């Protein structure tokens, strides 16, 4: 792990780091990832489930309904003419 990699990952994750933070997270992540090398000693296994239990598809009738009122959902949102406000794209 090096500071440049930490900064690249942080940029990808939309987090800005000060120099002090970049150094500190670099050391922390380096220590943690070194410890994770323990996994190299773990036995092989052909199975790789996504969930710890078997999950099957359970389907139901597709019935249109309004579960929550749109105005209720918008009440705490920053909106403009009932559209959620966000940053500009360019």
């Amino acid at each position: 792990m090096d500071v440049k990699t930490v900064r690249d990952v942080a940029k990808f994750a939309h987090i800005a780091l000060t120099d002090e933070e970049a150094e500190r997270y670099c050391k922390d992540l380096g220590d943690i990832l070194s410890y994770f090398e323990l996994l190299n000693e773990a036995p092989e296994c052909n199975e790789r489930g996504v969930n710890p239990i078997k999950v099957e598809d359970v389907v139901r009738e597709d019935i249109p309904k309004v579960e929550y009122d749109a105005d209720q959902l918008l009440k705490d949102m920053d909106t403009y003419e009932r559209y959620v406000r966000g940053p500009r794209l360019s």
Partner: protein
Amino acid sequence: MSMNDVLRNLKAINGRYQMFHAMTDDAEPGDAKFLFSAKDNLTSYDMETCAGSRILEGYHPVFDATSIEKLRKAGGKLIGKTNMDEFGFGTFSTNSGFEIPRNPYDLNRACGGSSGGSACAASVIEDHVSLGVSTGGSICCPASFCGVYGIAPTYGRVSRFGLIDYGNSLDKIGVISQKATDLKKYMEIIAGKDERDPTSMVQPDFKTAYRKMGSVAIPKEGIEGLSKEVDAIFKEAVEQLRSMGVDIDYVDMPSLRFAMPAYYILATSEASTNLARYVGMRYGHQDGDHTLKFDDYFTDVRTRYFGDEAKRRILLGTFTRMAGFGGRHYAKAREVRQVVINDYKQVLKDHDAVLAPTMPFTAPKFDDISKMSALDSYKADYLTVPANIAGTPHLSVPCGYDSEGMPVGMQFVADHWNEDVLFSVAEDWEKQFDLRRPEVSI
């Protein structure tokens, strides 16, 4: 303490112990049959829900989590949302954007995490039940540190609808209480299928009939690295179990030592994607500078409001998912999860449960926690993580007190969907265990 007394004194109780992030203003129980609290990562229509994070400050959901909805329908009154590590990221409930709950047995010590406020409320308030959420040990750890009973059921047993996710393949909603008998009583209410959470739809019936625990297996890997006092108290508790007619065997479960790194890879990978939705739009803080460009706006809000540990886990999870590293370690972590499940299944063919102390030490002082590195803190989870990664139900009971009066817990792990045998052993244990309640003053 009657329900009236609890409600009238709620602010004073919270002033001393800091278990609640949000509380009811209602001083009257009305026709409530019982009072309950819920971890603050479960949505509630009448109280702010922040999951311990400043980024969600001001979020007032318009719906209840299924587990809260079910307790209300059963006559419960929600009295507060409990403090926790931000999004569940911690072992001591000290990684919070808000208040840090204090241990009922010593206010200078932690409650454990991440459901620390829930365990604190269950310990301090009589006849109280609190909903906790476990991803890597966040119910049993605080239950152990606060001297109460806690169960994390099988993954999928309780609907996760309305839960603010940490790791979707790991999160489980459970119950914490002073009374072992409460665990079954309230789990029966919140368990069950819910079409709003597909992972809850495959569960078999919830078994509640008494089923005596005949034998337990103690893995050698589960009794390494303990403090001297926890080791001695656990040995006494094992002898007590033996005298109750439970057969004890010592076994090898070598896969357990790989569970911790596998857990942190899976959990942070899932967390880093789940937290991508918090960008200063729709809920929580929405005070970003709209003159900024798209990416800069998101970065500004996330940088200001995510806490230190949240950032660390986002960075770790983002890194482990990246090409190269991800292909190697993420896939391996998924394999290890299956190896741990297979090991549990093998041992549980001949035993009703796997047993070990819940935590390797008693609740640490805040000063000592502040000196721990991130890795030290992660390593402290080595006893609770295996059952969580396997999705197997696990239950912590208080089993003794150290020389400073701090509680010690032990944790039983059963096979998937076998919560019944855990309830039975906890209720049998409760009948003969001398529970020392903390001296509660407000």
